[in-house]
């Protein structure tokens, strides 16, 4: 489908949704609107709120805090995941010993850790970073582990026949393979970094998008809740676009998925 037509259709969905929302919450049918604006707000109110936040500049601080938390969570979680993934993949004994514990830790709903992290790291950004790290770490860890394990045996045999030492194998074979798996999960891990930050803020904080939404909820300020969700959604999309750009640059050597299918 042509790009222009696709964009037009995508915009149409947004337009229909907003118009319906507007009509249902503002046009009175038999005295009052079909959908109570107290619980659902109106597009106009939400837009006014978003405008106010940006006009007055209060939103930037919250955005910055959430971005910082998500970025730190991503960097620390990825680094940990890469290191441990590599270590486990190259040392099968270690992997076997820790296997049940890794599974237990991963099965744990991270949200129950949030209060503990708050106790340990306080109400500042550190507790949110810690929550994000627990989410990002496992995604990256599993992918890197898989990436190192699933290097094509032919490529490996070829590398050996070319005379590669253990260190050269690491650099030229295992490392690129692991990285490619890590990058293929980039969207998921970046998304989870943001989720960790926002959920952490929501459960107890003094700033950030999650805090903003929680505050609005506490005062039945539905327009504020929706405005917060809208800003969060746009924030995530912008990050996702950036990730796609990074991915295109880093994974040029990989065939597009469409190429693989006849």
């Amino acid at each position, binding site marked *: 489908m042509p790009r222009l037509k696709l964009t037009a259709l995508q915009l149409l969905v947004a337009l229909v949704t907003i118009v319906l929302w507007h009509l249902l919450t503002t046009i009175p049918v038999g005295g009052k609107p079909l959908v109570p604006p107290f619980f659902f707000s109106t597009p106009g109110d939400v837009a006014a709120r978003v405008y106010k936040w940006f006009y007055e500049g209060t939103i930037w601080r919250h955005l910055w805090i959430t971005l910082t938390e998500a970025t730190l969570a991503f960097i620390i979680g990825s680094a940990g995941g890469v290191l441990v993934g590599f270590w486990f993949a190259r040392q099968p004994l270690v992997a076997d010993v820790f296997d049940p514990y890794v599974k237990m830790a991963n099965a744990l709903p991270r949200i129950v850790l949030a209060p503990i992290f708050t106790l340990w790291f306080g109400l500042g950004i550190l507790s949110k970073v810690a929550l994000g790290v627990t989410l990002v770490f496992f995604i990256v860890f599993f992918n890197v582990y898989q990436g190192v394990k699933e290097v094509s045996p032919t490529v490996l045999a070829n590398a050996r*026949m070319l*005379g590669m030492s253990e260190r050269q194998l690491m650099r030229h074979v295992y490392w690129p393979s692991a990285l490619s798996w890590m990058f293929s999960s980039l969207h998921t891990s970046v998304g989870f970094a943001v989720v960790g930050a926002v959920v952490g803020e929501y459960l107890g904080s003094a700033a950030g998008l999650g805090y903003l939404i929680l505050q609005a909820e506490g005062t039945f300020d539905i327009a504020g809740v929706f405005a917060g969700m809208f800003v969060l959604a746009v924030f995530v999309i912008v990050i996702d676009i950036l990730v796609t750009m990074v991915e295109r640059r880093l994974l040029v050597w990989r065939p597009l998925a469409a190429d693989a299918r006849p």
Partner: protein
Amino acid sequence: MSHVATVSTEQPSVSASAVTLADVTVAFRLADRSLFTAVQHASLDIAAGEFVAIVGPTGCGKSTLLNVAAGLIAPAAGTVAIGGHRLDGLNRQAGYLFQSDALFPWKTALDNVAIGLEVGGVSSEEARGRAAQWLARVGLGSFGGRYPHMLSGGQRKRVGLAQVLIRDPQILLMDEPFGPLDAQTRQIMGNLLLDLWSAARKAVIFITHDLEEAIALSDRVVIMSAGPAARIIGDWKVPLPRPRDIAEIKLERGFHELHREIWQSLKAEVIKGYEQTGG
């Protein structure tokens, strides 16, 4: 072992053995702990600069024998000697061209070729310079920046060939390297291989199931029986003149006679092989 000193003056290189397999048996432990014998009592002597093709039915253990020569598999019995020295571990003097894709998918064609030198300690700059020359030699001069997935099957084989040959190995091990290619491309690749080989003669072990390809390329054709416990059952000299053109040599009478002669002995084994594998 006494060596008869009747070395032909035309082929002075055929004096020392490049690869010697002496009474090699290869066995694998299967998942149910039973022992599977792939190759039994195989003895083969390949002279320096000699091009030997090993032909056999599908699944007869040809590749196994090649992996033994490469040092990727240790034989259960018998010995492998490279240039007169017993092989222990990987065969450092051999270049190996694999049947399936063995290029590093995350490296460009140029880097894939250059890595063959870089692992040996050659500086990146020099390696890339020489890699560019090698790419040109295999006809891919302008494809250096492409990644393997952007190349056709034949082009990938060319890169693979350059990757192996840039290290100038004395022994070239090839495991049905042109198997996945179409007939036309195989012929072109065969001629390219002969060109490169005649420029710098290496001992070649070329595995194939295609008897025509084997005769057209090699100095000697070795026939293996159907597996399991495959043995070497025939060894023919190919007296056809060089330089050869793969397409043209197949039209010559000598080619046909030899083909018929070898096929007579191979036929029974091929049928046996199919019966065993259910193919």
